[in-house]
């Protein structure tokens, strides 16, 4: 997904940035409950292909594609997330790599979606649409960080045993977080495919799962601002340092190694966020008045 970025001007960069932010958030909400997923490109692929089939093969409008992607995101997220709850940490990372690899092979052999050649004809993603979706997720996270579920997620991440002793249900909370992450990745897939016009299985390889990890690691795992920050900086940086374009992946690698060595909590750690919000006085996230439906079922209505 990164390859075409250097060729086309501004608009595509903006859209890729939006997609990257959503992918980063999708990964972040999983890691926020202590679940390390390295297979989010699988959910992205499911969303991209499902919506692609809906808009290209069935000739239905894009909002239906979004609905389909949300649905498939919930289903695949639950299917992967439910058994995956038995395993954690590095084991979960490997299991999700396994899922991603198997799905990759499936799409490479599935004739209906063009197998190795890929599927084309998807269009409709605009900058406005992308950032509409990003904004909805942004409101969702703002709301979440002060909600019961948000605090529960925080509790589960820091100490699962203590959380369950306090009457929380870690299994349920982790499952919800995993499914939301899967849905977000799936929606990112829809935006991506309907901008790219063409998708093939190799667009959704392991590297596509690893970029969001970098974004989050670079920004910070501690809060969703960090994830967005990482996605924005790491998408824009190679654009503005043109001579680095050829070395962008080396730059990514070196940056990650450096950040991990010097500041393993990421750039925008929670202490930075609270310092910034104190600086702006009344603008603390808790003041956000507009409640938003907690379910991820929103973005479908936003398409134009």
């Amino acid at each position: 997904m990164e390859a075409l970025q250097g060729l086309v001007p501004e608009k595509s960069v903006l859209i890729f940035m939006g997609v990257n932010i959503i992918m980063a958030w999708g990964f972040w909400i999983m890691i926020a409950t202590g679940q390390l997923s390295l297979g989010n490109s699988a959910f992205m692929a499911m969303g991209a292909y499902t919506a692609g089939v809906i808009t290209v093969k069935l000739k239905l409008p894009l909002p239906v594609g979004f609905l389909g992607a949300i649905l498939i995101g919930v289903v695949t997220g639950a299917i992967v997330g439910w058994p995956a709850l038995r395993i954690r940490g590095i084991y979960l990372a490997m299991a999700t790599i396994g899922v991603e690899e198997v799905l990759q092979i499936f799409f490479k052999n599935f004739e209906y979606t063009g197998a190795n050649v890929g599927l084309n004809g998807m269009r409709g993603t605009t900058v406005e649409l992308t950032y509409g979706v990003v904004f909805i997720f942004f409101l969702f996270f703002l709301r979440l960080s002060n909600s019961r579920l948000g605090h529960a997620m925080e509790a589960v991440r820091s100490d699962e045993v203590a959380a369950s002793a306090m009457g929380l249900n870690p299994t349920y909370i982790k499952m919800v977080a995993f499914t939301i992450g899967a849905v977000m990745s799936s929606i990112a897939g829809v935006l991506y495919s309907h901008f790219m016009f063409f998708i093939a299985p190799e667009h959704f390889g392991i590297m596509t799962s690893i970029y969001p990890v970098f974004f989050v690691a670079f920004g910070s795992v501690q809060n969703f601002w960090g994830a967005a920050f990482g996605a924005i900086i790491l998408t824009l940086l190679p654009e503005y340092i043109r001579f680095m374009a050829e070395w962008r992946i080396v730059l990514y690698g070196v940056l990650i190694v450096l950040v991990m060595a010097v500041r393993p909590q990421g750039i925008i750690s929670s202490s930075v966020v609270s310092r910034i919000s104190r600086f702006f006085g009344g603008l603390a996230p808790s003041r956000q008045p507009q409640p938003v439906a907690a379910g991820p079922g929103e973005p479908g209505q936003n398409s134009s």
Partner: protein
Amino acid sequence: MQQVINGLMLGSMYSLVAIGYTLVFGLLNLLNFAHGDVFMFGGFIALFVLLSLKLPILVAFIGAMVGCGILGFILELVCFRTVKKEYHLAPALGTLGFSLVVIELTTKVWGTEPVSLPPSVEVINFQIGDLLISSVQILILAVAIVLMAALEFLILKTRLGRAMRAVAEDPTVAKLLGVNAVRTIVAAFVISSALAGAAGILLALRLGLANPHVGFTYGMKALAVMAIGGLGNVRGAMLGGLIIGMAEVLTVAYGSATYSDVVVWTGLIAILLFKPSGLLGTKLQEERR
């Protein structure tokens, strides 16, 4: 029977790479994502020695092992020693970054396409009954077996091996008992990388080319092999490699080539779900979950 030989060959290569993952994982509980690319780099060192320096294959072997050992040393230095211990994820992510740098630099030097290796081993085919075995195959098997036996000896009989086992069991207690933990960890990185380098040159010999992308294909499968055999368990990695190699070759031979990878990955998922400690997992690995 022919397939069994092929499976053994492929399997022993997976084993060599998986052992590297497992050594580091056993000691540090750290998934070294750069390992697959150290393995890939071994093939390119071999290419450099054989093609540019025109030296014999033995030098290529030593070069690949030493070169990858040095790479492992650097890896430990930048991705592990400098990172604070309380962030569990940080070193693993650091190794991911490191692997990107290794792949990119390799493709900058040698290009993104696989490069053919000059013929370096005289290929003689031995006919035993129905079996056809080439000298390359014999070389691969022999090197793999010798290296694994040497490693087994190192772990069980030497001072360093004892130190490794002590650090794996409990780093704090090991340090209290006078084990130099830092040196032991460096040794584990260097040894695992040198083994990966050897596996890299074996793969290059088998395929006849050095490919910058094997880190992701073979490297990832070796990761699965490690998990199947039992995380942090060296014998488990050996066994897992043979099983996966066999399974893959047999699926290709009697089933369909497209689905040989599916066997590997579904095997991994099944193992993780039903016996997360792996086939030969011990109590130690169970507790680490």
